[in-house]
């Protein structure tokens, strides 16, 4: 596995402008991913530094669980606690489920009285109205975060792309991952294969290691990356892409992020 430097210049810019966002690894962690019987599973959600140890909760707004044939599956016991959020999802049919938390939003950065400020909102118009008088160097940016994980009852089934933002189109099915094997994943931006998507994959258990242990890759002209799993366990995949196709005319660009959780089983 070639280690390549992480060339996310836009991300670096965002990080320097928003020092509060230090622990920025958002993730979903399902209790089960490969099951042989219809059942409820439970999913933890947290933003933390250690993969997959909880630290802070976040809102479950924008959560959908899509089952085989595109039907929505029931979600119950949504919970936002002191250190994590969680919910239960019912897998009642044979086939694969895609658990997604999609949060498109806008961020505004500006300077006021020599201090840097940052505001977030779901609507660009509402956000712009909130900017105080006298704000300088205002920059509006669109951010689309997609958190995702997958679970399958019985034999795996395929998913249709959503066609919005950054998403993963599995060539290798996400519930067919085994230690030592190589998975092929394709990244789409607004439904089209995207080259140059920067990907970082961190194995779970980072608290018990001295190094982050990340594998990195960049998607090729087909939007594809190959990942060879060094061992069984859960992995956090973070993909990032920037372009200037923001939905709002005043926004200067888009930052698209995909955060997926994958379970790799032993052979």
């Amino acid at each position, binding site marked *: 596995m070639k280690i390549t430097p992480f060339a996310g210049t836009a991300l670096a810019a965002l990080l320097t402008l928003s020092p509060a966002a230090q622990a920025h690894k958002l993730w979903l962690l399902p209790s089960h991913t*490969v099951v*042989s*019987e219809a059942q409820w599973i439970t999913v933890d959600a947290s933003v933390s530094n250690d993969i997959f140890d909880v630290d802070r909760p976040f809102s479950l707004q924008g959560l959908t669980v899509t089952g085989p044939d595109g039907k929505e599956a029931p979600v119950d016991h949504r919970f936002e606690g002191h250190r994590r959020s969680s919910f239960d999802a019912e897998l009642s049919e*044979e086939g694969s489920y895609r658990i997604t938390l999609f949060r498109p939003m806008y961020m505004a950065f500006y300077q006021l009285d020599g201090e840097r400020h940052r505001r977030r909102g779901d609507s660009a118009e509402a956000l712009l109205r909130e900017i105080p008088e006298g704000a300088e160097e205002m920059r509006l940016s669109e951010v689309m975060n997609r958190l995702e994980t997958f679970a399958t009852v019985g*034999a*795996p089934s395929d998913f249709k792309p959503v066609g919005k933002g950054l998403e993963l189109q599995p060539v290798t099915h996400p519930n*067919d991952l085994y230690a030592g094997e190589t998975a092929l994943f394709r990244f789409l931006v607004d439904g089209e294969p995207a080259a140059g998507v920067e990907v970082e994959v961190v194995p779970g258990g980072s608290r018990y290691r001295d190094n982050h242990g990340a594998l990195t890759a960049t998607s090729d002209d087909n939007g594809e990356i190959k990942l060879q799993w060094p061992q069984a366990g859960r992995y956090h995949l973070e993909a990032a892409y920037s372009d200037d196709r923001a939905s709002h005319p005043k926004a200067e660009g888009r930052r698209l992020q995909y955060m997926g959780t994958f379970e790799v089983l032993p052979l």
Partner: protein
Amino acid sequence: MRPWLSLLAALFAGVAAANATAAELRLEVEIPRMAVAEYHAPYLAFWLKHADSGDIVPLGLWYDDQEKWLKDLRLWWRRTGRTQSQPYDGLTGATRRPGTHSMDFSGLPALAELPAGAYELVVEAAREVGGREVVRLPFQWPATGNKTVRADGEQELGRVQLRLAP
């Protein structure tokens, strides 16, 4: 009357000939005794894998009607189990207690049409609150004479022996 008798004789001769040429595939499996406080008899799965094509022929399954644990037979689940549903292919029955058990796969319809070639008979065992093990027995099909293939497990399986006859 005579034409009927000769027809019956011909039929019997045909049936006898068919029995005489049915190839044999018999397996003996030893489930080891475990000195543990919470013991559950292991789930076992049996199948054939063609060495070149990778084609899978399910032979059987021992499980106690709890589909929840079938996924713990990880290799079987991935290769064939997850695309099956009840009733499971091959000789299917309950789990067995520690000791040596015999399985005769000879009469399975899948064997009657089995293409010639190099195969592995794969046995996978998974025990609740216990381990998981896979044992493989390579053989040639059809057998050219009486053959015995033996492989031993190290934890969840003991002696595993395959007997073939042409």
